């Protein structure tokens, strides 16, 4: 499992987000969370966290990735909605 993850996730990125991480600990991220995140989802969360300089605690990464999957599904329902795609002119009304 470790080898599979290391092949697809940039360990450097994970190390940047979680200082002091050891290789074997990467395995933890893909276990222990029901319906746990995929490697790609882990990779995305770690990349995003690095972009906004948000250090993640290693025990949180899998949880956050799983929650992002659920939130993403909710957001997709908005993105695919004809309502949400209608621009709202009042958002740009300088009088507001």
């Amino acid at each position, binding site marked *: 499992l470790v080898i599979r993850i290391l092949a697809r996730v940039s360990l450097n990125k994970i190390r940047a987000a979680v200082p002091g991480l050891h290789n074997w600990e990467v395995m933890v991220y893909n276990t222990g969370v029901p319906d746990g995140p995929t490697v790609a989802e882990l990779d995305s969360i770690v990349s*995003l*966290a690095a972009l906004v300089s948000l250090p993640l605690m290693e025990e949180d990464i899998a949880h*956050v990735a799983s929650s*992002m999957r659920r939130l993403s599904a909710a*957001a997709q*329902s*908005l993105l695919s909605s004809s*309502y*949400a795609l209608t621009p709202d002119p009042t*958002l740009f009304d300088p009088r507001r």
Partner: protein
Amino acid sequence: MTSSPRPTIARYGDLMRRGELTSRELVESVLDRIAKTEPLVSAYAFVDRSGVRAAAQRADDELREGADRGPLHGIPLAIKDVITTKDMPTLAGSHVPLGTLAGKDAKVVELLRAAGAVIVGKQVTHEFACGQNVPPTRNAWNTACYPGGSSAGAGVSVALGSCVAAVGTDAGGSIRKPAALNGVVGLKPSYGRVSRRGVIPPSGSMDHVGLVTRYVADAAVVLQAISGAVPGDQSTIAEPVPEFDAFLGEGLEGTRVGVVYQSFLGDDDPAVTAATQAALTVLRELGAELIDVDIPSLPLVGATTEVILAAEAGYSHLALLRAHAANYVPATRRYLQLGALIPASFLQAAYQARATIGRDVAHVFHSHRADVLVTPTTPLRALPVAEMKIERDLRRYVRHTALANLTGLPAITVPCGFGDGLPIGLQLIGRPFREPELLGMAAAFEAATPWIAATPLMSS
């Protein structure tokens, strides 16, 4: 339950001004109630016994000298622990050090003190009002059950009489839920009506300062004291402050009530649906005209709320997360981390959906000439804490309340019945900045039903 109604704030005021009650005596009775009930419900994070006694003594001295600050003079209120106070700790239900964020009176506390209120203490909240953990507080009607949140202490303590009224915050239903689940009144005013300066913010555009009271009339009194635009305060809107008690005592004859029929189509607790249907019958008997209304974008409310709340909360906590991540409750930390990482396209979609929802609701009010919309307050009664699935159930509780946060409309919950001894609330959503009419309608319903007279056995 018992039926020995407590006095309104106005009644306490009458007794004080006639010399039949002092603020000090009222405060002692509240402190006595706290001593009896706190071991069972943990509604308070901090009780300022010496401070409130001193404040009550000052209030009595002032009144004796003819310096009457108005209806809240000498009335013991409590404050949610995300609202800062200069003389009491503000911890926001967290071990995260808040540094300079805390330490001064929030604007709302400043206004309450100026109005003569005496502050009993700080009340328990979910950590940073994020609603991701269940705090130690327990329901006033059954101490095995969830108290609602995030203004958990407010709902419980008002029900038990361990304060006369409480000030809290509401970003998705955090005042109305605990009020409904504990059988009292909860009001979220219009966005911009009350300053949020000095409130530790979980969400920029969704959060509101509001209140929990025993009676609708009390809500009008407290709202009068804390309302109004504050120069330079972006959380307030320069809207005239009306007399909030202007419609109290008026009937409902001719009032047009929009019944959001979609709110009855979900998997609500049957006892909640039955109590709400019975409440609609009462409204009709009082002369209101009931109209079924359809909000086409209502199915988007859940996802829209979830994205905006998380993103705005995550952003507002970014600096604290960078410095003190380990101090958060893990569930809160993960929620805020998630929020801080939400892609811009998701947030923009949610803002667009929010605008659509707002237009739909405005259209419903306009096309049906509705004065108010009505829904159940919560889809469930208070669940036993031991049986709760936190992530699933805490989200379910905001199903009916979040609409008013997305639109900024004023909303109130009033008790409308019981199921197996647990209270149920009815939510009324008003037109923007029309709290006087909203309060008038809620008071008419309250006066026509027996529910507000019921108090938990523990408080008697």
